Protein backbone atom coordinates (compact mmCIF):
# COMPACT_ATOMS: atom_id res chain seq x y z
CA UNK A 1 0.00 0.00 0.00
CA UNK A 2 1.34 3.43 -0.87
CA UNK A 3 2.37 5.37 2.25
CA UNK A 4 0.01 8.28 1.52
CA UNK A 5 -2.99 5.89 1.55
CA UNK A 6 -1.81 4.40 4.83
CA UNK A 7 -1.52 7.88 6.33
CA UNK A 8 -4.97 8.84 5.02
CA UNK A 9 -6.48 5.70 6.53
CA UNK A 10 -4.76 6.32 9.85
CA UNK A 11 -6.00 9.92 9.96
CA UNK A 12 -9.55 8.80 9.08
CA UNK A 13 -9.53 6.15 11.81
CA UNK A 14 -8.15 8.70 14.29
CA UNK A 15 -10.92 11.18 13.45
CA UNK A 16 -13.63 8.53 13.77
CA UNK A 17 -12.24 7.28 17.07
CA UNK A 18 -11.93 10.85 18.37
CA UNK A 19 -15.53 11.57 17.35
CA UNK A 20 -16.95 8.55 19.12
CA UNK A 21 -14.74 9.11 22.18
CA UNK A 22 -15.89 12.72 22.45
CA UNK A 23 -19.50 11.67 21.87
CA UNK A 24 -19.28 9.06 24.60
CA UNK A 25 -18.19 11.65 27.15
CA UNK A 26 -20.22 14.64 25.96
CA UNK A 27 -23.65 13.12 25.24
CA UNK A 28 -25.54 12.25 28.44
CA UNK A 29 -26.32 8.56 28.83
CA UNK A 30 -30.08 9.10 28.91
CA UNK A 31 -30.14 11.22 25.75
CA UNK A 32 -32.61 9.85 23.21
CA UNK A 33 -34.47 7.50 25.58
CA UNK A 34 -37.82 9.24 24.91
CA UNK A 35 -36.83 11.69 22.20
CA UNK A 36 -34.24 14.24 21.15
CA UNK A 37 -33.50 15.32 24.73
CA UNK A 38 -31.93 14.21 27.99
CA UNK A 39 -34.42 11.82 29.62
CA UNK A 40 -32.79 12.41 33.02
CA UNK A 41 -34.19 15.97 32.87
CA UNK A 42 -37.54 14.37 33.77
CA UNK A 43 -35.92 12.83 36.87
CA UNK A 44 -34.41 16.21 37.77
CA UNK A 45 -37.91 17.67 37.73
CA UNK A 46 -39.30 14.79 39.78
CA UNK A 47 -36.69 15.39 42.48
CA UNK A 48 -37.70 19.00 43.12
CA UNK A 49 -39.00 19.49 46.67
CA UNK A 50 -42.73 19.99 47.23
CA UNK A 51 -44.26 22.69 49.45
CA UNK A 52 -47.97 21.83 49.37
CA UNK A 53 -48.57 18.54 51.17
CA UNK A 54 -51.96 17.78 49.61
CA UNK A 55 -55.37 17.22 51.19
CA UNK A 56 -54.71 13.55 52.03
CA UNK A 57 -51.77 14.53 54.25
CA UNK A 58 -53.95 17.04 56.16
CA UNK A 59 -56.74 14.48 56.60
CA UNK A 60 -54.26 12.01 58.13
CA UNK A 61 -54.11 13.98 61.41
CA UNK A 62 -56.95 16.52 61.29
CA UNK A 63 -59.90 14.25 60.66
CA UNK A 64 -62.02 16.13 63.24
CA UNK A 65 -61.87 19.35 61.20
CA UNK A 66 -62.73 17.45 57.99
CA UNK A 67 -65.73 15.90 59.81
CA UNK A 68 -66.76 19.22 61.30
CA UNK A 69 -67.01 20.93 57.94
CA UNK A 70 -68.56 17.94 56.13
CA UNK A 71 -71.93 19.74 55.98
CA UNK A 72 -70.49 23.16 55.24
CA UNK A 73 -70.14 24.64 51.78
CA UNK A 74 -66.43 24.89 52.47
CA UNK A 75 -66.10 21.09 52.61
CA UNK A 76 -64.59 20.77 49.15
CA UNK A 77 -61.88 23.39 49.69
CA UNK A 78 -58.39 22.10 50.38
CA UNK A 79 -56.95 23.09 53.76
CA UNK A 80 -53.93 24.65 52.06
CA UNK A 81 -56.12 27.07 50.08
CA UNK A 82 -56.45 29.25 53.19
CA UNK A 83 -53.71 27.88 55.45
CA UNK A 84 -50.92 28.07 52.86
CA UNK A 85 -48.23 25.52 51.97
CA UNK A 86 -47.97 22.95 54.76
CA UNK A 87 -45.51 20.28 53.63
CA UNK A 88 -43.04 21.33 56.32
CA UNK A 89 -45.80 21.08 58.94
CA UNK A 90 -47.00 17.70 57.67
CA UNK A 91 -43.45 16.36 57.89
CA UNK A 92 -42.84 17.78 61.35
CA UNK A 93 -45.94 18.89 63.32
CA UNK A 94 -43.82 21.08 65.61
CA UNK A 95 -43.42 23.46 62.64
CA UNK A 96 -46.46 25.67 63.22
CA UNK A 97 -48.37 26.94 60.17
CA UNK A 98 -48.72 30.69 59.74
CA UNK A 99 -51.95 32.35 60.99
CA UNK A 100 -54.58 32.96 58.33
CA UNK A 101 -55.42 36.59 57.61
CA UNK A 102 -56.64 38.97 60.30
CA UNK A 103 -60.29 37.97 60.37
CA UNK A 104 -61.08 39.49 56.97
CA UNK A 105 -59.43 36.85 54.78
CA UNK A 106 -62.90 35.85 53.47
CA UNK A 107 -63.06 39.02 51.36
CA UNK A 108 -60.65 37.64 48.79
CA UNK A 109 -63.32 35.23 47.58
CA UNK A 110 -66.60 36.65 48.85
CA UNK A 111 -66.48 40.38 48.09
CA UNK A 112 -69.08 41.21 45.45
CA UNK A 113 -67.56 41.71 41.99
CA UNK A 114 -69.21 41.80 38.57
CA UNK A 115 -66.80 39.22 37.12
CA UNK A 116 -67.73 36.59 39.73
CA UNK A 117 -70.34 33.96 38.86
CA UNK A 118 -73.79 35.18 39.94
CA UNK A 119 -74.56 32.07 42.00
CA UNK A 120 -71.38 32.41 44.04
CA UNK A 121 -72.12 33.81 47.53
CA UNK A 122 -70.94 37.42 47.63
CA UNK A 123 -71.39 40.38 49.95
CA UNK A 124 -71.07 44.11 49.33
CA UNK A 125 -68.63 45.04 52.06
CA UNK A 126 -69.95 48.59 52.48
CA UNK A 127 -73.46 47.26 53.26
CA UNK A 128 -72.63 44.05 55.14
CA UNK A 129 -71.83 45.08 58.74
CA UNK A 130 -68.99 47.47 57.88
CA UNK A 131 -66.24 47.78 60.47
CA UNK A 132 -66.73 44.27 61.81
CA UNK A 133 -64.49 41.29 61.20
CA UNK A 134 -66.01 38.39 59.25
CA UNK A 135 -64.88 35.92 61.91
CA UNK A 136 -66.95 37.72 64.57
CA UNK A 137 -70.10 36.16 63.07
CA UNK A 138 -68.83 33.36 60.77
CA UNK A 139 -66.75 30.36 61.78
CA UNK A 140 -64.36 29.91 58.83
CA UNK A 141 -64.75 26.12 58.67
CA UNK A 142 -68.54 26.30 59.10
CA UNK A 143 -69.48 29.76 57.78
CA UNK A 144 -73.22 29.46 58.45
CA UNK A 145 -72.54 29.12 62.19
CA UNK A 146 -71.15 31.58 64.70
CA UNK A 147 -67.69 30.79 66.04
Amino acid sequence: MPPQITRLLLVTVAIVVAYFTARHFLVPASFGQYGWYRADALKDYQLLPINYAGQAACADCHEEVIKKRAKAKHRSIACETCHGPLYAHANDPTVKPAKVGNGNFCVRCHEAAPARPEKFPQVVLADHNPGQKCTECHAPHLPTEAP
Partner: protein
Amino acid sequence: MKSSQQSVSRRGVLSALGKLVAGAAALATARKVRAVTKQAVTTPAPAGYDPTKHQWRMALDVNKCIGCGSCADACKNENHVPRDPGYFRTWVERYIIKKAPHGSGEPCGETLVDSPNGSIGGFPPTLVPKSEILKAFHVPKLCNQCSNSPCDMACPVGATFRTPDGAVLVDPTYCIGCGFCVQACPYGCRFINPLSHTAEKCTFCYHRITRGLKPACAEVCPTGTRIFGDLKNAKPDDPLLQFYAKNRLQVLKPHLGTLPRVFYAGLDEEAR
Protein backbone atom coordinates in the same frame (compact mmCIF):
# COMPACT_ATOMS: atom_id res chain seq x y z
CA MET B 1 17.44 18.67 9.62
CA LYS B 2 14.31 16.83 10.63
CA SER B 3 14.63 17.38 14.36
CA SER B 4 15.54 21.05 14.06
CA GLN B 5 12.50 22.00 11.95
CA GLN B 6 9.88 19.78 13.53
CA SER B 7 7.82 21.76 16.04
CA VAL B 8 5.31 18.93 16.62
CA SER B 9 7.16 16.10 18.33
CA ARG B 10 5.86 12.59 18.84
CA ARG B 11 6.37 12.99 22.59
CA GLY B 12 4.34 16.20 22.60
CA VAL B 13 1.42 14.70 20.68
CA LEU B 14 1.31 11.60 22.86
CA SER B 15 1.41 13.63 26.07
CA ALA B 16 -1.34 15.96 24.80
CA LEU B 17 -3.48 12.94 23.89
CA GLY B 18 -2.88 11.44 27.33
CA LYS B 19 -3.91 14.70 28.99
CA LEU B 20 -7.08 14.84 26.88
CA VAL B 21 -8.10 11.32 27.89
CA ALA B 22 -7.34 12.04 31.55
CA GLY B 23 -9.34 15.28 31.38
CA ALA B 24 -12.35 13.54 29.81
CA ALA B 25 -12.20 10.82 32.46
CA ALA B 26 -12.02 13.43 35.22
CA LEU B 27 -15.02 15.25 33.70
CA ALA B 28 -17.07 12.06 33.64
CA THR B 29 -16.20 11.31 37.28
CA ALA B 30 -17.06 14.86 38.34
CA ARG B 31 -20.42 14.59 36.58
CA LYS B 32 -21.16 11.31 38.33
CA VAL B 33 -20.24 12.77 41.75
CA ARG B 34 -22.47 15.79 41.10
CA ALA B 35 -25.40 13.54 40.14
CA VAL B 36 -24.99 11.45 43.31
CA THR B 37 -24.83 14.51 45.61
CA LYS B 38 -27.83 16.05 43.86
CA GLN B 39 -29.79 12.85 44.46
CA ALA B 40 -28.82 12.90 48.15
CA VAL B 41 -29.69 16.52 48.94
CA THR B 42 -33.06 16.76 47.17
CA THR B 43 -36.33 15.23 48.30
CA PRO B 44 -36.59 11.62 47.19
CA ALA B 45 -39.27 11.07 44.57
CA PRO B 46 -40.98 7.70 44.30
CA ALA B 47 -38.91 5.47 42.05
CA GLY B 48 -40.48 3.73 39.14
CA TYR B 49 -42.53 6.53 37.61
CA ASP B 50 -42.88 5.59 33.96
CA PRO B 51 -43.77 8.60 31.78
CA THR B 52 -45.05 6.35 29.00
CA LYS B 53 -47.86 5.06 31.26
CA HIS B 54 -49.50 8.43 31.96
CA GLN B 55 -51.18 11.16 29.95
CA TRP B 56 -51.90 14.34 31.90
CA ARG B 57 -54.54 16.92 31.03
CA MET B 58 -56.00 19.99 32.70
CA ALA B 59 -59.46 21.39 32.16
CA LEU B 60 -60.69 24.76 33.39
CA ASP B 61 -64.26 25.80 34.03
CA VAL B 62 -64.42 29.53 33.30
CA ASN B 63 -67.96 29.64 34.73
CA LYS B 64 -66.63 28.74 38.18
CA CYS B 65 -63.57 30.97 38.51
CA ILE B 66 -64.00 33.73 41.12
CA GLY B 67 -60.62 35.39 40.53
CA CYS B 68 -59.35 34.92 44.09
CA GLY B 69 -55.79 34.39 42.86
CA SER B 70 -55.12 31.39 45.13
CA CYS B 71 -53.77 29.43 42.16
CA ALA B 72 -51.27 32.08 41.09
CA ASP B 73 -50.10 32.51 44.68
CA ALA B 74 -49.76 28.75 45.28
CA CYS B 75 -47.84 28.35 42.03
CA LYS B 76 -45.27 30.90 43.14
CA ASN B 77 -44.98 29.23 46.56
CA GLU B 78 -44.61 25.76 45.11
CA ASN B 79 -42.21 26.53 42.29
CA HIS B 80 -40.19 29.41 43.80
CA VAL B 81 -41.22 31.72 40.99
CA PRO B 82 -39.83 35.24 41.60
CA ARG B 83 -42.38 37.32 43.53
CA ASP B 84 -41.99 40.38 41.28
CA PRO B 85 -45.02 41.10 39.10
CA GLY B 86 -44.14 39.95 35.60
CA TYR B 87 -42.99 36.43 36.44
CA PHE B 88 -45.89 34.00 36.38
CA ARG B 89 -46.33 30.34 35.53
CA THR B 90 -50.06 30.75 35.99
CA TRP B 91 -52.25 33.81 36.41
CA VAL B 92 -55.89 34.87 36.12
CA GLU B 93 -57.20 37.48 33.71
CA ARG B 94 -60.34 39.54 34.29
CA TYR B 95 -62.40 40.29 31.21
CA ILE B 96 -64.95 43.10 31.37
CA ILE B 97 -67.00 43.49 28.21
CA LYS B 98 -68.93 46.75 28.01
CA LYS B 99 -72.35 47.21 26.49
CA ALA B 100 -72.35 48.48 22.92
CA PRO B 101 -73.64 52.03 22.41
CA HIS B 102 -77.34 51.99 21.52
CA GLY B 103 -77.91 51.60 17.80
CA SER B 104 -74.28 50.75 16.99
CA GLY B 105 -75.24 47.44 15.44
CA GLU B 106 -72.59 45.62 17.48
CA PRO B 107 -73.37 43.00 20.15
CA CYS B 108 -70.61 44.11 22.54
CA GLY B 109 -68.70 47.25 23.27
CA GLU B 110 -65.10 47.61 24.40
CA THR B 111 -63.35 44.70 26.12
CA LEU B 112 -61.13 45.50 29.09
CA VAL B 113 -58.62 42.87 30.24
CA ASP B 114 -56.47 43.17 33.34
CA SER B 115 -54.50 40.95 35.68
CA PRO B 116 -52.91 43.09 38.42
CA ASN B 117 -50.02 41.10 39.92
CA GLY B 118 -51.34 38.06 38.07
CA SER B 119 -54.46 38.13 40.32
CA ILE B 120 -52.47 37.34 43.50
CA GLY B 121 -54.42 38.70 46.44
CA GLY B 122 -57.57 39.10 44.33
CA PHE B 123 -58.70 41.82 41.94
CA PRO B 124 -59.30 45.44 42.98
CA PRO B 125 -62.88 46.67 42.34
CA THR B 126 -63.38 47.58 38.70
CA LEU B 127 -63.83 51.25 37.81
CA VAL B 128 -66.44 50.41 35.16
CA PRO B 129 -69.94 51.08 36.57
CA LYS B 130 -72.15 48.00 36.76
CA SER B 131 -74.74 49.56 34.43
CA GLU B 132 -72.17 49.71 31.60
CA ILE B 133 -71.04 46.07 31.90
CA LEU B 134 -72.54 43.58 29.45
CA LYS B 135 -70.68 40.61 30.93
CA ALA B 136 -67.58 39.93 32.96
CA PHE B 137 -65.64 36.79 33.81
CA HIS B 138 -62.24 35.47 34.87
CA VAL B 139 -60.00 33.29 32.71
CA PRO B 140 -57.18 31.38 34.43
CA LYS B 141 -54.13 31.00 32.20
CA LEU B 142 -51.16 28.66 32.27
CA CYS B 143 -48.88 26.87 29.84
CA ASN B 144 -51.11 24.94 27.46
CA GLN B 145 -48.57 22.08 27.21
CA CYS B 146 -49.21 22.00 23.45
CA SER B 147 -48.79 18.71 21.61
CA ASN B 148 -47.56 20.80 18.67
CA SER B 149 -45.64 23.33 20.73
CA PRO B 150 -44.16 26.36 18.93
CA CYS B 151 -41.77 27.03 21.83
CA ASP B 152 -39.80 23.82 21.40
CA MET B 153 -39.59 24.38 17.66
CA ALA B 154 -38.01 27.78 18.30
CA CYS B 155 -35.42 26.50 20.79
CA PRO B 156 -32.00 26.52 19.07
CA VAL B 157 -30.35 24.15 21.55
CA GLY B 158 -33.10 21.57 22.08
CA ALA B 159 -33.61 22.54 25.71
CA THR B 160 -37.41 22.44 25.47
CA PHE B 161 -38.99 19.09 24.80
CA ARG B 162 -42.30 17.25 24.93
CA THR B 163 -42.49 14.42 27.43
CA PRO B 164 -44.32 11.16 26.69
CA ASP B 165 -46.83 11.91 29.50
CA GLY B 166 -48.18 15.12 28.03
CA ALA B 167 -46.03 17.94 29.40
CA VAL B 168 -43.63 20.36 27.77
CA LEU B 169 -40.53 20.90 29.89
CA VAL B 170 -37.32 22.93 29.79
CA ASP B 171 -33.99 21.26 30.55
CA PRO B 172 -32.27 24.06 32.51
CA THR B 173 -28.86 22.46 31.95
CA TYR B 174 -29.27 22.93 28.19
CA CYS B 175 -31.11 26.29 28.14
CA ILE B 176 -28.94 29.24 27.14
CA GLY B 177 -31.58 31.84 28.01
CA CYS B 178 -31.79 33.30 24.51
CA GLY B 179 -35.52 33.96 24.91
CA PHE B 180 -36.62 32.70 21.50
CA CYS B 181 -39.19 30.43 23.17
CA VAL B 182 -40.55 33.39 25.16
CA GLN B 183 -41.31 35.10 21.87
CA ALA B 184 -42.53 31.93 20.17
CA CYS B 185 -45.20 31.11 22.77
CA PRO B 186 -48.49 32.54 21.47
CA TYR B 187 -49.99 32.38 24.96
CA GLY B 188 -47.30 34.40 26.76
CA CYS B 189 -46.63 31.58 29.19
CA ARG B 190 -42.84 31.77 29.36
CA PHE B 191 -40.29 34.07 30.97
CA ILE B 192 -36.57 34.15 31.61
CA ASN B 193 -35.91 33.59 35.30
CA PRO B 194 -33.84 36.55 36.53
CA LEU B 195 -31.81 34.33 38.89
CA SER B 196 -31.01 31.31 36.72
CA HIS B 197 -31.21 33.17 33.37
CA THR B 198 -32.99 30.18 31.86
CA ALA B 199 -36.47 29.90 30.39
CA GLU B 200 -39.20 28.87 32.79
CA LYS B 201 -42.87 28.02 32.57
CA CYS B 202 -45.60 25.85 34.03
CA THR B 203 -44.50 22.21 34.28
CA PHE B 204 -47.94 20.86 35.32
CA CYS B 205 -46.07 20.68 38.67
CA TYR B 206 -44.16 17.69 37.29
CA HIS B 207 -42.58 17.02 40.70
CA ARG B 208 -46.04 16.75 42.27
CA ILE B 209 -47.94 14.76 39.66
CA THR B 210 -45.19 12.14 39.53
CA ARG B 211 -45.65 11.73 43.30
CA GLY B 212 -49.40 11.24 42.90
CA LEU B 213 -50.36 14.77 44.00
CA LYS B 214 -52.35 17.38 42.10
CA PRO B 215 -50.57 20.45 40.69
CA ALA B 216 -50.44 23.20 43.33
CA CYS B 217 -52.97 25.41 41.49
CA ALA B 218 -55.51 22.59 41.17
CA GLU B 219 -54.89 21.61 44.81
CA VAL B 220 -55.77 25.04 46.20
CA CYS B 221 -58.51 26.13 43.77
CA PRO B 222 -61.49 26.67 46.11
CA THR B 223 -64.21 26.42 43.45
CA GLY B 224 -63.08 23.39 41.47
CA THR B 225 -62.31 25.50 38.42
CA ARG B 226 -59.14 23.53 37.70
CA ILE B 227 -59.64 19.84 37.03
CA PHE B 228 -56.56 17.71 36.55
CA GLY B 229 -56.28 14.07 35.59
CA ASP B 230 -54.47 11.23 33.93
CA LEU B 231 -56.28 9.99 30.81
CA LYS B 232 -54.34 6.71 30.70
CA ASN B 233 -55.37 5.73 34.24
CA ALA B 234 -58.79 7.39 34.50
CA LYS B 235 -61.73 5.38 35.83
CA PRO B 236 -65.14 6.18 34.32
CA ASP B 237 -66.05 8.33 37.34
CA ASP B 238 -62.82 10.32 37.12
CA PRO B 239 -63.56 14.05 37.55
CA LEU B 240 -61.66 14.86 34.36
CA LEU B 241 -63.62 12.36 32.26
CA GLN B 242 -66.87 13.59 33.86
CA PHE B 243 -65.87 17.12 32.93
CA TYR B 244 -65.12 16.07 29.35
CA ALA B 245 -68.51 14.36 29.17
CA LYS B 246 -70.59 17.20 30.62
CA ASN B 247 -69.07 20.24 28.90
CA ARG B 248 -68.48 21.63 25.45
CA LEU B 249 -64.76 22.23 25.48
CA GLN B 250 -62.54 24.69 23.69
CA VAL B 251 -58.85 25.50 23.58
CA LEU B 252 -57.19 28.90 23.38
CA LYS B 253 -56.27 30.12 19.87
CA PRO B 254 -57.28 26.90 18.07
CA HIS B 255 -56.50 28.48 14.68
CA LEU B 256 -52.76 28.32 15.49
CA GLY B 257 -52.79 24.53 15.44
CA THR B 258 -50.82 24.24 18.67
CA LEU B 259 -53.07 21.42 19.93
CA PRO B 260 -53.14 22.42 23.63
CA ARG B 261 -53.52 19.88 26.41
CA VAL B 262 -55.32 22.48 28.54
CA PHE B 263 -59.05 22.75 27.85
CA TYR B 264 -61.63 25.38 28.74
CA ALA B 265 -65.36 25.19 29.29
CA GLY B 266 -67.45 28.35 28.98
CA LEU B 267 -64.80 30.32 27.12
CA ASP B 268 -65.88 33.55 25.44
CA GLU B 269 -64.83 34.61 21.96
CA GLU B 270 -63.00 37.57 23.49
CA ALA B 271 -60.73 35.36 25.63
CA ARG B 272 -57.55 34.44 23.80
